[in-house]
C-alpha cells in the first residue's frame, strides 16, 4: 500500500487503535487535517485552545489508561500545548503529541509559525522526535506510542514538518507490529533477594505503614495493593495521585498524607518504624522538611523508575519493578513465609492511630449559614453515590475534593498533582466524558482556575459531553490567599479579582445550564437537579465561605508531626478579612 505522509500518520494512529484525537488545525498540519477529513474511524475533538487539547487527552488517558493523542500546528499551536505536555510529564501520563512543523528546507530560517518544538519540549517529555524522512514516519509513530506507554509512562512529542506530509509524495506503508529500541529497556522485574529482605523487614516491624502513590494507579495494581494491605493488616495512606488505588472507605485507609493530609496519616508516617512506599516518589508536598521526615522508619521502596529511588529520601531496600508483578511476588513470598507480623504490636499501633483519628481533623463548621466548600464536596459524594469521575483544577478546591470525596476505585480522581496546572479540570472532564459517556463526570473547580480554560465550555457543547462543573466560588485565589493569611500577615496581594463573570450567564452564553447557589440548604437540591439533567452540561456556581482554609496543613519547612489544625470550629467566618 502506498500512502502519503498525512495518510500514513492517520493510518498509523488507526493501526495503533486510537479512538480520539484532541486537536486544532493550522497551516503546518493542513495536509494531516485533509487526511483526517477523509476517514471516519478516528474522532477528532476540536478544542478551543491547544492547552485544552492536551488536558482533554490527558483526562482521557488518566481515566482509561490508554494514551491520549493530540494534534496541533506549528509555532503557537505547539507552544500552547506545552503546559499540558508538562502536566502529563509530571504525573507520568501516557500521551502522544503530534505537532506540525514548518517544511524541512525552511527549518531554522525563522519561518512563519516556526518554533523549535523539539528543543522547547525536551525537558518536559519522556522523549521527542523530529521526523525528517517520510519513510520513517510510521516507525516513529510506533516508537512514540511504545515509549509513551511502557516503563514509567509519559508524553512523547512527534514533530512533523509540513513537507513530510505532502500529498504527492507516496511511499509504501506498513505499520510495524512491534518495535524495539536498543537503548530503552522498560520491562524490569523485582529482584527476589530484595523482596525477601523486604519481607523480613515488614514482618519484624511494629509500627508499619504503607504509603502508595500514582504508580499503583498507572500500573493497574489496585487489586494487588488491596490484597497485600488486607493480608498484612497494616494502615495505608495514599498520596494525592494515588487516591482510589486503595478503597478510601476501607477501614485500613487512614487518609491522604502530606501537606494537606490527615492528622492520623501524617502522624503515623512520622512515628512509623517501617514505610513501604509503592509507586510513590517522595514528593516535597508529601515529605515536608526532609531532615524531619520519618525519623524512626526504615524504608522499602517499590518503583519502576530507578531515578525515583533515593532521589530525595534515602531508602533501605530498593525494588526496581513494575508495581503489579512486584506486589504479586511479594504476596507469594508472604504466603510462603512462616514469619508473620506481630499481632500484638499491630494492635497497639492501630490503637495509637485510632487515638490520632479521634481528633477528627477534617471536621468543619456544619452549622454555618454560609456554604462551606467541604459541604458541597460531601453532598456531591452523596448525590453521585461515590461513583463519579472527579476532575479538579488546582488550589483549595482540589484539596477539599481529595479530602472529602472518598474514592474507592482507581482512575476516578483526575487532577494535576505534580505540575499543579490551573485550567486542567474542565478540558480533562471533557476527555473523561468522551471515554465514559454513561458515567457521571464532575469538575470540582474554583472561579479562578475555571477561567483559565473556560473556552472549552464551547467544546463541551459541540461534542455533547454533559459534565457538571462544581465551582467553589470564594472570590479569591483561595490557596494563594490562605498562604498570604498564614505567612504574609494577611496581605492579600493580587489573590482576588474585582471582576468575576456571572457564571450562570456565561454558561448560558455557551449553550449550557447555569445554576447559582447561595445557601447551604440549596446545595443538595441544586446538585440533584444538575445530575438529573443527564444530557446537559451544568455550571453550578456555589457562593462559598470566602474565608475557609484547608486544614490540616504542614507549612513549608515543617515536619509531618507539626501540622496546623483547624483551631476551633466555626471561627473562620469570624476572622477579619481585608
Amino acid at each position, binding site marked *: 500500500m502506498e500512502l502519503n505522509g498525512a495518510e500514513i500518520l492517520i493510518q498509523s494512529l488507526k493501526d495503533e487503535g486510537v479512538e480520539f484525537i484532541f486537536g486544532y488545525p493550522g497551516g503546518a498540519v493542513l495536509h494531516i487535517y485533509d487526511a483526517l477529513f477523509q476517514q471516519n474511524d478516528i474522532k477528532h475533538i476540536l478544542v478551543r485552545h491547544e492547552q485544552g487539547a492536551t488536558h482533554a487527552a490527558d483526562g482521557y488517558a488518566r481515566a482509561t489508561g490508554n494514551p491520549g493523542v493530540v494534534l496541533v500546528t506549528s509555532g503557537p499551536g505547539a507552544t500552547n500545548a506545552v503546559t499540558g505536555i508538562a502536566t502529563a510529564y509530571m504525573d507520568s501520563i501516557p500521551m502522544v503529541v503530534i505537532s506540525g512543523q514548518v517544511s524541512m528546507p525552511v527549518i531554522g530560517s525563522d519561518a512563519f509559525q516556526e518554533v523549535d518544538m*523539539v*528543543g522547547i519540549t*525536551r*525537558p518536559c517529555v*519522556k*522523549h521527542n522526535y*523530529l521526523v525528517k524522512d517520510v519513510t520513517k514516519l510510521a516507525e516513529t509513530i510506533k516508537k512514540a506510542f511504545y*515509549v509513551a506507554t511502557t516503563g514509567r509512562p509519559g508524553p512523547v512529542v512527534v514533530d512533523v514538518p509540513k513537507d513530510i506530509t505532502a500529498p504527492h509524495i507516496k511511499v509504501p506503508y506498513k505499520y510495524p507490529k512491534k518495535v524495539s*529500541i*536498543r*537503548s*530503552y529497556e522498560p520491562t524490569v522485574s523485582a529482584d527476589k533477594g530484595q523482596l525477601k529482605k523486604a519481607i523480613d523487614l515488614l514482618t519484624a516491624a511494629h509500627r508499619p505503614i504503607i504509603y502508595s502513590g500514582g504508580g499503583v494507579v498507572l500500573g493497574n495494581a489496585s487489586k494487588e495493593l488491596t490484597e497485600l494491605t488486607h493480608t498484612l493488616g497494616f494502615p495505608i495512606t495514599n498520596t494525592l495521585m494515588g487516591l482510589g488505588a486503595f478503597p478510601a472507605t476501607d477501614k485500613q485507609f487512614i487518609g491522604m498524607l502530606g501537606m494537606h493530609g490527615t492528622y492520623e496519616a501524617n502522624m503515623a508516617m512520622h512515628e512509623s518504624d517501617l514505610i513501604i512506599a509503592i509507586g510513590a516518589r517522595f514528593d516535597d508536598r508529601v515529605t515536608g522538611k526532609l531532615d524531619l521526615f520519618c525519623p524512626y522508619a526504615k524504608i522499602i521502596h517499590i518503583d519502576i*523508575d*530507578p*531515578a525515583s529511588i*533515593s*532521589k530525595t529520601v*534515602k531508602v533501605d531496600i530498593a525494588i526496581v519493578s513494575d508495581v503489579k508483578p512486584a506486589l504479586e511476588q511479594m504476596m507469594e513470598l508472604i504466603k510462603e513465609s512462616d514469619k508473620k507480623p506481630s499481632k500484638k504490636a499491630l494492635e497497639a499501633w492501630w490503637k495509637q492511630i485510632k487515638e490520632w483519628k479521634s481528633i477528627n481533623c477534617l471536621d468543619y463548621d456544619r452549622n454555618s449559614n454560609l456554604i462551606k466548600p467541604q459541604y458541597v464536596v460531601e453532598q456531591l459524594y452523596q448525590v453521585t453515590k461515590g461513583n463519579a469521575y472527579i476532575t479538579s483544577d488546582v488550589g483549595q478546591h482540589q484539596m477539599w475534593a481529595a479530602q472529602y470525596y472518598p474514592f474507592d476505585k482507581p482512575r476516578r480522581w483526575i487532577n494535576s498533582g505534580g505540575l499543579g496546572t490551573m485550567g486542567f479540570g474542565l478540558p480533562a472532564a471533557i476527555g473523561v466524558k468522551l471515554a465514559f459517556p454513561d458515567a457521571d463526570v464532575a469538575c470540582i473547580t474554583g472561579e479562578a482556575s475555571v477561567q483559565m480554560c473556560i473556552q472549552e465550555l464551547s467544546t463541551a457543547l459541540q461534542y455533547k459531553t454533559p459534565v457538571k462543573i462544581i465551582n467553589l466560588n470564594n472570590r479569591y485565589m483561595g490557596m494563594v490567599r490562605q498562604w498570604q493569611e498564614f505567612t504574609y500577615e494577611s496581605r492579600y496581594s493580587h489573590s482576588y479579582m474585582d471582576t468575576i463573570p456571572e457564571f450562570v450567564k456565561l454558561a448560558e452564553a455557551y449553550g449550557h445550564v447555569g445554576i447559582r447557589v447561595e445557601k447551604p440548604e440549596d446545595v443538595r437540591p441544586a446538585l440533584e437537579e444538575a445530575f438529573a439533567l443527564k444530557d446537559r452540561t451544568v455550571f453550578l456556581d456555589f457562593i462559598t465561605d470566602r474565608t475557609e482554609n484547608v486544614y490540616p496543613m504542614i507549612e513549608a519547612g515543617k515536619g509531618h508531626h507539626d501540622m496546623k489544625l483547624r483551631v476551633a470550629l466555626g471561627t473562620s467566618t469570624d476572622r477579619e478579612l481585608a
Partner: protein
Amino acid sequence: MKHIISILIENESGALSRVAGLFSARGYNIESLTVAATEDATLSRMTLVTRGSEDVIEQITKQLNKLIDVVKLIDLADTAHIERELMLVKVKTTEKTREEIKNVADIFRGKIIDVTPTSYIVEITGPSDKLDSFIAAIDAKNIVEVVRSGATGISRGEKGLHL
C-alpha cells in the same frame, strides 16, 4: 569528588543537547564534555567530567540512563581507568625564557609544535591534573592562550563499554 562518566549514546541530532539540557535543568555541574562518533557510526561516545557527592553522582547516572538515547554508561571512577586530555598552550617567549620553557615542556613530555621569534605552542597530553601542573609551572604572564579538549577516558583491561 571528580567523576568521569563515559556514555554511549545514539548518534542522532539532539542527543548532545539532551545530555547538556539534563545537567542544566537539574542543576548538576559539567566540568568538561567531549563527544565524537565511535567505530560504529550509529553511536557516539561522550565523556563527561562532573563533581558531586555520591548521592548526586548516583542521581546523575540514573537520570542519564533514563534518557531514551543513552545506550550505556559507566562511571570510570568506579574502575581502574586511564584518563587523557589534550592541551595546546601558546606561550610568549624571549631569548631569556625560551630555554626554560622548553625544559619545562620536556619535563611534562610536551612537544613544541609551533615556533615564532616571540612564541611557542606547546602540546601536552595527560591526565587533567598533569595539565594543571604544567600551567602552574609556567609564569602566568607568559601564557597567551590555553586550549583544552576536556578529559576522555577508558577503562583498563579487557572489558569495555560497547553494545
